[in-house]
């Protein structure tokens, strides 16, 4: 029995772990909980690696499909089935690998929390859902995972349920995600209507076989492909925190930090990118939507980056950074460079998970403090964290040699290809990214400690269970970039690997068309901008200046700073134009339509009937002469009626 046939175990094992821990309950020894919680994703990782390895070496067909059972049968047949193709293989690897290490990290980080077992139930559940998402062989299984990860996100953000803020943030995340899911669902409906199936391969085969059919006008002035692509993309903006649905992600930092690392940086939020790439056949036939994707991506990237500049909460900075980096991925996808988007997805998973876990280590050491203004000078207390964090910063800043450099460079190349403005925005964002990341870095690790005495007293390096994942991920953050596009060398292992999935695009060939000079210019510009950002950060925050540079900056442009710190007031804006009107409408429905119109008219009707009866009652006067008169007059009236 080959490991490939055990593919179904990959998502199932985490589910089993969750179920087991759920049944065992909180009263069993912590070690047992930990064992179950780590064994499940660990085994899943091993099975995934084995399966991918076998598959890559020619066991089983390409792509490999495993049908478990029929979720729906005739007339609409939908299987619960898994698909192993290059794309899902990459995603599975990223998810299981990063996921496993974050589990390991969590065992240390969450050790003292009250709901330890509950945490791991959720986390395992999340792993299962995420794997469902990436391994699904049809839109439905993906959607199950898609919503499932949303649920886990809701539960994990609201992990500290007895406080006020986390449940609120969880709810916001779930609802905003649902708005995206709504569009996603509509896309699925259209697909079923057209193709009668949700199977990826069948749909894409049909699309490729008759591309013109899907390009005819369908709805909203869009072609069918455009309509579906738009729907999927709106879904993706929800899940992947793009404009306009990005607002939930910064709030989601209310959850435990490893959760932020796993869900809100490395895996779940990239699901949107995954789905766009997965459906690239449709996107490719809808150029107008591709433009939308690219523009939204670029806009999100720069918007989030600018907000990130003015944040003080270490996790918020990272959150906006994540939003921004996700924007990059969409920029790549929108530019038609799907493999590059996946490439960045992978590298980002490593370095952003690293950064989050690093920040978690910092917060852990700081006894829960997240405000960078109270940190500083942690370098000497947290050496491992410091160095690994530096790797992450370098990677995200796009310093050559680190993972981020390669992927970011590939994206900017693709953007250049698409439109120079996109490239310009991307490059600008790269600079800002480098700046705020190193602002964070310097504020946290350099200068003097600005926290309380007590915090200072407790400062310590994290346990091995936490530092080990940091090291592993740091290694990944350095080397993950080498699998993809390497400038000046015509090598793109990942691109080739993914080629069957994005075959109709052939971006690698386009990339090669850049002249050598152009390529040098593009690489140079991005590196230069990155270094400039780092330099600025160093000028302002490095050199032991603590908060002086920040204060100067705030003083220089107080309004801008306030605007940025308040995230451009987008939450307030949404509240004013969406939430409040909707609540108003709902209140009107209830108080006016329901209570006044419907119930009111029923009551008035009942009242009128009763009133008629009550008035009519007085015809029975009790005076028998009246009764006789009724008889007599009625008699005459009937007679007249009968005769005339």
């Amino acid at each position, binding site marked *: 029995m080959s490991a490939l046939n055990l593919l179904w175990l990959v998502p199932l094992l985490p589910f089993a772990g969750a179920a087991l821990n759920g049944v065992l309950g909180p009263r069993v020894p912590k070690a047992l909980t930990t064992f179950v919680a780590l064994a499940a994703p660990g085994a899943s990782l091993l099975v995934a690696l084995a399966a991918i390895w076998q598959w890559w070496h020619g066991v089983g067909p390409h792509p490999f499909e495993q049908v478990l059972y029929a979720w729906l049968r005739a007339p609409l047949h939908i299987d619960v089935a898994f698909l192993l193709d290059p794309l899902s293989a990459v995603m599975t690897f990223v998810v299981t690998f990063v996921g496993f290490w974050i589990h390991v990290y969590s065992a240390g980080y969450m050790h003292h929390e009250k709901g330890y077992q509950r945490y791991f139930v959720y986390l395992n559940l999340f792993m299962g859902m995420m794997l469902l998402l990436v391994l699904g062989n049809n839109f439905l299984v993906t959607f199950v995972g898609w919503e499932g990860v949303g649920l886990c996100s809701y539960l994990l953000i609201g992990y500290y349920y007895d406080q006020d803020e986390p449940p609120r943030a969880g709810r916001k995340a779930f609802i905003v995600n649902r708005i995206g899911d709504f569009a996603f669902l509509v896309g699925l409906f259209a697909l079923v209507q057209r193709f009668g199936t949700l199977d990826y391969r069948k749909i894409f085969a049909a699309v490729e076989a008759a591309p013109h059919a899907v390009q005819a006008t369908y709805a909203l002035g869009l072609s069918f492909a455009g309509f579906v692509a738009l729907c999927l993309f709106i879904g993706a903006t929800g899940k992947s925190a793009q404009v306009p649905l990005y607002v939930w992600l910064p709030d989601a930092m209310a959850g435990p930090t490893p959760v932020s690392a796993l869900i809100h940086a490395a895996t779940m939020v990239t699901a949107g990118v995954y789905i766009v790439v997965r459906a690239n056949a449709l996107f490719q036939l809808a150029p107008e939507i591709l433009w939308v994707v690219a523009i939204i991506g670029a806009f999100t990237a720069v918007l989030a980056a600018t907000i990130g500049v003015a944040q003080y909460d270490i996790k918020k900075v990272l959150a906006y950074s994540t939003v921004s980096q996700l924007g990059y991925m969409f920029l790549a996808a929108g530019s038609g460079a799907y493999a590059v988007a996946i490439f960045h997805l992978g590298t980002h998973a490593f370095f952003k998970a690293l950064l989050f876990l690093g920040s978690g280590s910092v917060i852990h050491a700081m006894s829960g403090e997240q405000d960078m203004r109270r940190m500083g000078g942690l370098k000497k207390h947290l050496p491992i964290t410091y160095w690994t964090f530096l790797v992450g910063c370098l990677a995200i800043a796009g310093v050559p040699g680190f993972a981020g450099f390669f992927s970011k460079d590939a994206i900017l190349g693709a953007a250049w290809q698409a439109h120079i403005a996109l490239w310009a925005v991307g490059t600008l964002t790269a600079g800002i990214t480098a700046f705020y990341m190193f602002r964070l870095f310097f504020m946290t690790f350099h200068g003097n400690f600005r926290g309380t005495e007590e915090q200072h007293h407790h400062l310590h390096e994290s346990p091995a269970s936490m530092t080990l994942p940091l090291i592993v991920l740091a290694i990944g953050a350095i080397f993950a970039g080498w699998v993809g596009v390497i400038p000046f060398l015509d090598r793109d292992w990942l691109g080739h690997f993914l080629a069957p999935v994005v075959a109709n695009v052939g971006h690698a060939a386009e990339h090669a068309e850049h002249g050598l000079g152009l390529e040098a210019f593009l690489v140079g510009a991005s590196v230069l901008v990155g270094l400039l950002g780092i330099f600025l950060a160093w000028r302002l925050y490095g050199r032991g200046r603590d908060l002086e540079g920040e204060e100067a900056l705030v003083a220089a442009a107080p309004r801008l700073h306030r605007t940025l710190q308040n995230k451009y007031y987008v939450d307030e804006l949404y509240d004013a134009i969406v939430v409040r009107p909707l609540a108003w409408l709902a209140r009107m429905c209830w108080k006016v339509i329901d209570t006044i119109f419907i119930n009111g008219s029923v009551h008035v009707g009942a009242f009128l009937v009763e009133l008629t009866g009550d008035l009519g009652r007085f015809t029975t006067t009790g*005076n028998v*002469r*009246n009764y006789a*008169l009724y008889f*007599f*007059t009625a008699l*005459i009236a009937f007679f007249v009626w009968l005769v005339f």
Partner: protein
Amino acid sequence: MEVAIFSIFALLSVGFAIVVVVHPQPVKSTMSMVVVLFSLAVLFVLLGAPFVAAVQVLVYAGAILVLFLFVLMLLNIGRERAAGVGQPAQRWVALIGAAFFAGFLGMLLWRTHGPDTLDALTPDYLSIHRLSWELFTTWLLPFELVGLLLLVAVVAAYAMARAPQPGEMTPPQAGALPAAPAEVAEVGGEAP
């Protein structure tokens, strides 16, 4: 001659009928009713029904109206007092309605039977023997029914109007007004 008798008694009956209806004193009304009944009895004779006329006088004027008078005296009911609820609408509607009814019915009958001529009175029609034969053969069932009817009337009147038995009034019934004075004797048992 016949016309004259008819006219006199017709006018008499109508006139006293009006008195019956409008006179405020029930006793006077009842007495006027006697006149009406007599007048009608005369008309019955004119119509060739002397037997019925006789019964009319005996039963109606002789028994029924006496019963009326008796009860009126017994209850000592005087003239209608003006107190109480006046109902002018009732009165006017009744008047108009009745006028209409009389006019319409009269006109109908007039129209229908105005041209009719009467046959001469036959002995058969006048024969009381034949009448009683009819009564006990063809109309046997109604006759028996009337018998039962009268029995019922006796029992019913007794059941309603007899004075309360000594034990009956305890416990005092809420809502019942004070009992009648003792001198109110049993009435109404005797049907003619």
